[in-house]
């Protein structure tokens, strides 16, 4: 993982939502070993920026490049290199935590159930592995979502409000995971309302109204 090269360039991106000019020429560059903290008031386009970075949303103007190439030319490669955690935990309520992981991580790489179980343990929800996720608390679901991000082993993490619903322990765990990821040469874009106390250098990007 530390050998994975990592460079995300977001260049002069403009997005309109109906009449609203949500992103106005936003740019940033992210290399391996860096965390970008995106913050700003509600409605300023933080989630939109993250979705543009993922490739879910094509900006009206501007480009997003991964390792120097526009992501529209390398969709499959780029998607294999990223792990996206949206505002919702994105879990199927009727499937167990383990099954959820198996079906999403299994699309990106071959992985054994034992390994997935270990990752759930690491995330502090090992006991929930065989429970349908609809019976889990919001905090537990968030941890399962985090376990998914870990299990995918992608160099680029795009996280939308990852600290939502986490208690003090959970927040600590999240920060520890982020720090570890970054230490190994990974990069992360984190949308969060509060400061990130990561113990490593965090760059900030403010989106204003």
């Amino acid at each position: 993982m530390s050998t994975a090269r990592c460079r995300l360039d977001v260049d002069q991106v403009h997005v309109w939502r109906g009449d609203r000019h949500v992103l106005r020429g936003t740019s940033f560059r992210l290399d391996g070993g860096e965390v970008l903290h995106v913050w700003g008031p509600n409605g300023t386009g933080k989630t939109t920026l993250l979705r543009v970075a993922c490739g879910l949303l094509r900006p009206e103007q501007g480009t997003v490049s991964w390792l120097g190439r526009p992501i529209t030319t390398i969709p499959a490669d780029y998607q294999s290199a990223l792990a996206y955690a949206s505002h919702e935990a994105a879990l199927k309520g009727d499937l167990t935590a383990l099954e959820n992981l198996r079906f999403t991580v299994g699309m990106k790489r071959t992985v054994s159930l034992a390994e997935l179980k270990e990752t759930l343990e690491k995330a502090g929800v090992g006991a929930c592995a065989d429970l349908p996720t609809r019976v889990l608390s919001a905090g537990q679901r968030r941890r399962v979502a985090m376990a998914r991000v870990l299990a995918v082993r992608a160099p680029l993490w795009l996280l939308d409000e990852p600290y939502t619903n986490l208690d003090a322990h959970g927040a600590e765990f999240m920060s520890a995971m982020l720090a570890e990821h970054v230490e190994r040469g990974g990069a992360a874009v984190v949308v969060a309302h509060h400061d990130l106390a990561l113990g490593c250098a965090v760059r900030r990007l403010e989106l204003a109204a």
Partner: protein
Amino acid sequence: MWTWFYRLASPPSVYRVAGVFAPWLLLSAAVFIVYGIIDGLAFAPPDYQQGDAFRIIYVHAPAGWLSMFAYTLMAIAGAVGLIWRIKMGHAVAAAVAPVGASFTVLGLVTGSLWGRPMWGTYWAWDPRLTSELILLFLYVGVISLRAAFEDPNRGDRAAALLAIVGVVNVPIIHYSVQWWNSLHQGATVAKFAKPSMPGSMLWPLLAMFMGYMLFFFGVLCMRVRAEILNRERQASWVREVVRA
């Protein structure tokens, strides 16, 4: 070369060009239609089989043809917008849809009126009319889909995809309805007997076709201008135009 095309396809230039063409198109349409109506209704000889009833062909046939042409145009414009992301494509597609639908309704109504003297009933599932009816459903689908989206960009793109899927299906629908009709020939359904056309009958028909086409494009120019003004309302050049 592409920059020339992109500049040509930019909203202000389309607005200008459409504005120049519209009055000429509508004027020449009026000329052709007036000639076609007068010659077709008053001077063309009555058909030996259908008498004077056949004259509705002058209003019906071009309407049917144009409804098909308009749908195809809508699908192509939508494809241009969807594949090459040229916003004018979506504007044209949105402008065409209600016009095409109106021609379809006109074709259905005139077809039904033609049916009365022919079959004694206003509707008898004639294959061409049935295909027209299904085409109307397709139009309604595209218009409703575009309107259902809050975000107009997504609405345009979704409607464009649906129009493309529809245009691929239209030949299939036509053929299957013909096939269905041929199976049930024994029943009272009669196809529209196309009268064999001597010149005196044909010229007014061709004039009507031409007139309808010109009218369609004239109205399209006007509608595209309105679409552009609406879609680009944030742009400064639009504010200049509106202020003037």
